């Protein structure tokens, strides 16, 4: 009797172990095929890219340090005082680039914030309206900044206004999406409380929802500010003003010292804004204990 039971248990065990092995084998197969796909993507892509490139990878590899070396030699020849003068010379353009990013982020914060409230499923009962607003956001977000900037530079001429509009457009879409996700996760009880004392929709949003979501809004906005400083530097390259436009000019003329100074200024400002926004976000989110 006992032996019979043990035998049955053993066969059950064998069954379980077989099933486990089957699952394990299948998972390994999935993992390996996924990895294989990745490897295929990488090498196939690299091969196509290498073919399409005007210079090859192997030919370019030993030239990789040539350009940085060239820049450093140029900077060395300029001397410390000359470099410092260049920093002063380009400083106003850096301010312009940061201003472009800041203005676009501010505008997008307000516009995207407004858009996010009408694009949140839990705050608006009109399903169709929400769906339309979401598509509008998707389209705004899909626009690479450079497309709008190129068009506007043709119309407005080389001006930071083109960059501001381009960056704002994309940022509105990006922020509105993140904001509406925050909105959809917020606690509706506060808004219900406002409604119970006769508050209209605007008042419910203002006093019920906004205080809950504002820290997260600000946190996402700070993250965007950092992204936008990079974007506004790049947009200068197509003529939309700021430090990018100066960089384009000195790169074309191959002024080593100027290029290095501008790169240094860009990297320094991007890194410091990065740290600053990280620190501020930690403060903001730490306060409410969310996310």
């Amino acid at each position: 009797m006992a032996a019979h039971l043990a035998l049955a248990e053993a066969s059950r065990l064998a069954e379980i172990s077989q099933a486990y092995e089957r699952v394990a084998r299948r998972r390994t197969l999935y993992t390996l095929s996924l990895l294989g796909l990745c490897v295929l993507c990488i090498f196939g892509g690299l091969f196509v890219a290498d073919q399409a490139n005007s210079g090859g990878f192997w030919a370019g590899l030993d030239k990789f340090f040539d350009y940085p070396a060239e820049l450093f030699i140029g900077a060395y020849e300029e001397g410390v005082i000359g470099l410092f003068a260049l920093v002063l010379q380009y400083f106003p353009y850096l301010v312009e680039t940061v201003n472009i990013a800041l203005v676009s982020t501010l505008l997008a914060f307000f516009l995207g914030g407004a858009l996010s409230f009408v694009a949140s499923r839990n705050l608006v009962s009109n399903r169709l309206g929400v769906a339309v607003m979401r598509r509008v956001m998707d389209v705004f977000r899909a626009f690479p900044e450079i497309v709008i900037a190129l068009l506007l530079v043709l119309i407005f001429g080389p001006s930071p206004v083109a960059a501001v509009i381009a960056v704002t457009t994309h940022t509105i879409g990006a922020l509105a999406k993140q904001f509406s996700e925050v909105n959809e996760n917020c606690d509706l009880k506060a808004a219900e409380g406002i409604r119970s004392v006769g508050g209209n929709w605007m008042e419910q949003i203002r006093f019920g929802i906004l205080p809950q979501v504002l820290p997260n809004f600000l946190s996402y906005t700070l993250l965007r500010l950092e992204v936008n400083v990079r974007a506004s530097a790049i947009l200068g390259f197509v003529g939309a003003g700021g430090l990018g436009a100066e960089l384009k000019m000195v790169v074309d003329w191959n002024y080593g010292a100027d290029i290095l100074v501008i790169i240094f200024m860009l990297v320094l400002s991007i890194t410091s804004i990065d740290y600053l926004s990280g620190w501020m976000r930690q403060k903001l989110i730490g306060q409410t204990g969310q996310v």
Partner: protein
Amino acid sequence: MTDIGALGGTLHHEEQRLEEQYPGVLGLDLKKRLLGPVLSLLVVAYLTLCFFAFDVPGVMEKARGDMAQLFALDAYAHKVHAKYQFKKANQGFVVSLEGNRRAIYKEQPDWIAQSAGQTSILLGNDGVLRFADDVVTYTHPEYEQAFTFKVGDGVPQFVSGADADWLKVSKTQVNARPSLYTRIWLTKSKVEVHRYFGGWENFWFDFDSGLNGLGVGELMSLAFSSERLDPDVSNIRFMFNEFWMNSEWQHGEVYFALLQTLIMAVVGTLIAGILALPLAFAAAANVNPVKLARTGVRRFFDFLRGVDMLIWSLIFIRAFGLGPLSGIFAIFFTDTGTFGKLFSEAIENADKKQAEGVQATGASPVQKYRFGLFPQILPLFISQMLYYLESNTRSATVIGALGAGGIGLKLIETMRTRQDWENTLYLIFLIIVVVMMMDQLSGWLRRKLIEGQA
């Protein structure tokens, strides 16, 4: 029964008690009350300052509204020229697409009528232009009197007609633009009429292709017909070639450029993820006990990320030349830094109980991290990589325009010509569609892989 005074006293007492229990609830202190208005004022002041610093009024004044209008028109319409040259009078009006000599219509369109020495050109809502015996008569629906010009004998002469602001008569030519869609242009040697029509011309096949102008039904029957248009290839193949090799729209090149942009994004993101993974472990405090090494790796991440994609792409374009390879390198250098930072933070935030549990069974350090830590952070890795895949598709377009090739470069090329606006619009449309598709795909994969597992 309590009297009013006692009630008031109780209320007052209650208020005091609340104030003590929750300080700052009944009356906010001045600092907090002023915070909102002061901040709003600062923002408004800053925006106003920038409004003038960027010289918005000046820019708006100088804005080329006509460029915008022309772009908008040319993006959805095509222009047809009808040109009569006095030296080649026997040809009559030659009708061509955008005045291109290689794109002359074989048949006269129905808006040009010829009868007994007189040619009438119907201009839609802008009236009719008649040309006979070296006299151009233009009737505009809003003007009672017709405009007449004497041409063919030297410089065109304005004979009669009202004074219209869209009509410009100079010493050498007459230029009339009654609306955006019509232009009449008279010079000493020619009478030329331009008309805009909606739609993209020659989108499917070249102007001189035998397939141009055929309807869908005709094309379908051709595709399955046994009679070969080109004896060497099947009809479907021939039609595809004609479409793919379209010289104006360059479908083949455009889609290859799009593929290059996608390759830049996908390969760049994948390599960045694979490289960042081991480095992130080296930068995490709970895995790597050596503080110096940790800080070194972290600074390396900051360096990769801080030197922006723009600058990386400049350096790589110098080294590897123009093309997607430089783009891949620019993306993976920047994103290795980003992923490294994100991943190492995730590793540090992981629950260490699982790793300890695995260790308790006698696992080696590698096994401990592989089975105790890795499964916790894998969903986050994949989700972050998918997020960046979508954003890198956009970045790849941007650095492509800087010289890394792909659709970005194509876009900037068509824009530089300043006339193929329909091609520009087409490219913008393709870019938007691809970015939105990548967005959907990455969202779908995220939901499938991450939430589906849970």
